């Protein structure tokens, strides 16, 4: 628009122009920059938090609880019971190299503990990895010591009680290490800072698989109830079997179909499939079911949609800015893992395909994205973007990843 000189001649326009000059001249010539909202955003979502392990405690035969406090220069941000932290890890691969990766862990301590004045902390409970799986959790379980310092990213995740959405009565359906977010919720309820009741139905194979039992039993609060359900021991004195429709009904006050109870599910993938169909049998309204994301599948070839083929190692061309690197990528592992194995700097958060933190552009090649781990937006699918943590190569590929 090129009419400046002229606009100044127009009566009304010159009126507003003069007013603008007066306005600008009234401004202070000093640097008064201050942005309260930016400071608050950074306090709530720090780019990273340095944390130090201050305590390690066994909480079952095969699980340990790690207490983290903020290291010098960091402050723990607030989080909501059920959210997770992503820990940056550097793990020796046994062949003299170090793999840089990250893992999400649900926080098992209560939000109030991270905000208390004296020694604020958060806790993670991590189970030993089984052979052939649980690479990072096995490393944490066996190698993490008091005094170790980590870079943590928090808080993340949508698996928390939302009073505007969820029913006042919550029934938790947990399996394995899926108990951790509910321990957090239970403590927050007992502390009086989370306003709902919680019945935890915790499925384990044997009684000695139960994680955090002593800790949860110690919570003295009439609004928190804890029930173990054991599937692999016919002599167990308490509830036996699986988290079935009958059992869920038994521990629900009122009819599960009437919407008065929210069901929160967290555990291993097979449990989700089972519990989902049980909740359906009970006629639970969909909005009353909350499912935590469940990580990458242990064996992608078992996915019903996976095309039949032999495992293969492909060439993956990676662009970071203008830098080009060619690495190997196994058809059995997500692209994010191929990047980590090759030492290409890359970031992940949820590692379940949901959060989109590892979004990258697929420039060439065929890939498989399991539908359970496809949290992509419509347009990303249309224009060929993928989430590296839940995308498996089916041919040689080329991707462009964010620089980090």
């Amino acid at each position, binding site marked *: 628009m090129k009419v400046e000189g002229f606009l100044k*001649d127009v009566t009304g*326009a010159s009126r507003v122009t003069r007013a603008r000059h*007066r306005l600008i001249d009234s401004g202070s010539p000093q640097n008064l920059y201050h942005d309260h909202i930016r400071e*608050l*955003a950074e306090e709530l979502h720090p780019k990273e938090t340095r944390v130090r392990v201050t305590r390690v405690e066994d909480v079952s035969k095969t699980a340990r609880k790690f207490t983290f406090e903020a290291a010098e220069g960091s402050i723990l941000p607030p989080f909501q019971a059920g959210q997770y932290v992503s820990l940056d890890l550097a793990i020796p691969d046994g062949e003299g190299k170090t793999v840089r990766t990250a893992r999400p862990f649900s926080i098992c301590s209560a939000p109030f503990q991270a905000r208390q004045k004296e020694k604020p902390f958060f806790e993670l409970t991590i189970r030993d990895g089984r052979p052939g799986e649980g690479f990072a959790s096995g490393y944490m379980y066996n190698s993490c010591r008091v005094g170790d310092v980590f870079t943590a990213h928090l808080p993340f995740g949508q698996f928390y009680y939302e009073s505007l959405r969820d029913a006042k009565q919550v029934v938790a359906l947990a399996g394995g290490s899926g108990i951790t977010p509910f321990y957090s919720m239970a403590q927050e309820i007992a502390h009086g800072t989370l306003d709902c009741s919680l019945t935890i139905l915790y499925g384990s194979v044997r009684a000695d698989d139960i994680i955090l039992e002593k800790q949860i039993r110690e919570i003295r609060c009439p609004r928190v109830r804890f029930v173990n359900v054991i599937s692999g021991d016919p002599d167990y004195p308490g509830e036996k079997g699986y988290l079935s429709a009958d059992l869920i009904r038994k521990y629900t006050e009122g009819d599960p179909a009437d919407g008065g109870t929210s069901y929160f599910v967290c555990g291993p993938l097979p449990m989700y499939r089972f519990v989902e169909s049980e909740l359906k049998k009970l006629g639970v309204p969909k909005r009353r079911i909350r499912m935590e994301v469940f990580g990458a599948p242990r064996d992608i070839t078992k996915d019903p949609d996976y095309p039949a083929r032999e495992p293969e190692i492909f060439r993956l061309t990676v662009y970071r800015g203008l830098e080009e690197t060619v690495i190997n990528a196994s058809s059995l592992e997500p692209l994010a893992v191929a990047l980590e194995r090759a030492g290409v700097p890359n970031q992940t958060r949820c590692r379940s395909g949901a959060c989109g933190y590892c979004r990258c552009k697929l420039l060439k090649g065929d890939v498989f994205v399991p539908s359970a781990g496809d*949290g992509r937006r419509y347009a990303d699918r249309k224009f060929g973007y993928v989430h590296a943590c839940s995308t498996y190569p089916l041919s040689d590929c080329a991707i462009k990843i964010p620089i980090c």
Partner: protein
Amino acid sequence: MAIYKDSYDVVVIGGALAGMSCAMKLASEGKDVLVLERHNLPGGIATSFVRGGVEMEATLHEMMSIGPESDPLPMRRYLDEMKVAIRWLRVPEAYDLVSQEDGIAISLHAGRRSDGTWVAADEIEALYPGSRDDVNRLLELCRKVYESVNYLNDHTVSKLQMLRDHEELVKTAGYSAKEVMNTMFPKLSAKVKKILSAYWIYVGQPIPTLPFTVYAFLMGDYMSGGSYVARGFSHEMSVAMEHRCEQMGVQMEFGQNVEKILVKNGRVTGVRTSRGDEIACRYVASAPYPNTVYGKMIEPKSEVPPEAFRYANAMPMSVSCFSVVMLLDARPEELNIHSYSVFSSETAMNTVKFWKQGRKLGGWDYLTTICLNFANPDGVPDGMTSLSITYLPLPECFDEVTADNYFEVKRKYAGEMIDQVSCRLGVNLRDHIAEIEIETPVTISHYTSDYRGGIYGYQHNMQNSIVARLADIERTTYIRGLVSCASHQLAGDGMAVNMNNGRIAAMQILAEMKKEA
């Protein structure tokens, strides 16, 4: 190979709509452009998110300046020219306005007939007999001003042409929407004026201080061409532009925060990212507000002239946003929802009052309720309703909010908004919430880092109207090579407007380059 080239013709800070539009335009003229975006997604707040497998809009979303394929408006033409592939869906109505105390409940539709009469004029006439002619005249005036602004966007005109062809713009440029309505349309009833004021919220400026040029631009556009959304949500606009930028040779990098703009002898020489990359350039198009740029980005600090601080300190911040985005487990009809966008208030329609309410938390009485089902039915699962409720408060309403009371504040005022809309609908929406996200000024700041969580730039009031900004453009350039490229710029806020802002920023840079060559 290194990650970056040593230098670029232009570095664009911020890969949102303005930044990407600027990059496309520069690339189309053969310039070497780098876009640095701190978030991992393009588009800024023109984005979407997925909850429970369902994609939801993150923004008060309604594109102007698109128009039907057969009769395209300028932004559709520009995007077509740039070969940006977006699937547009038409929003059925312009807007509903419900003002309970005023007894106003009306639904208006876009559309102008070849004889210069307007569909909305008939709709208003049906409820307020005797107003048709004046409404037709007002909308015609708006359309002429709108066309003049569009024309002047791309053309240089003489004084004579200006007076001859753009008389309506010249006549009204110095006046507010209220002044023009009152002086040129004295017979329009108070209620009809209220009905025609609903869009004030798209600028976040009350009618008495809203420049008529800006008001006319909105009315002239929306009421003639209607409004549109992308089939793939706002994220489709952003990704389509990202995709096109890359095809055109623009280097787009995400997760890259620009910490410093390097300046020497009053001239931009480069930028430095948080990662420590130093990239040389003679031009920077900046989405960060001047407050942030002058306050903490220019290096060395001594390169910021006192006049730049005067400008940044004097500019009054416009609104931020407080939105409740929900997925409800019933069909819209079951929830008594029948339109895409409804502006509603319980008390009498008074834009100054509504605007002032935004200085504090709560008691907000001008809510915008958007039901995506009516514009993008395939974007919502069957049996569900995708609904957002928005109020645009001023950033200062968050002055007392801390990390300790943030979640409580969020839920409390989101709850108030849900209850107010529930009350109007006669349906308790709380009984249907399957997913909910609450967006606040802090959310905006978290994802964009925009100054004080602002979404609309500086107040587009009389001192700051497009006309005044334009007349001042050279005076408010304080560092050579540094161009504003976002809603704090010339044309103000809005998605289409920001695409245009980016285009204008590119043209400013191209003109400057030519001069320097």
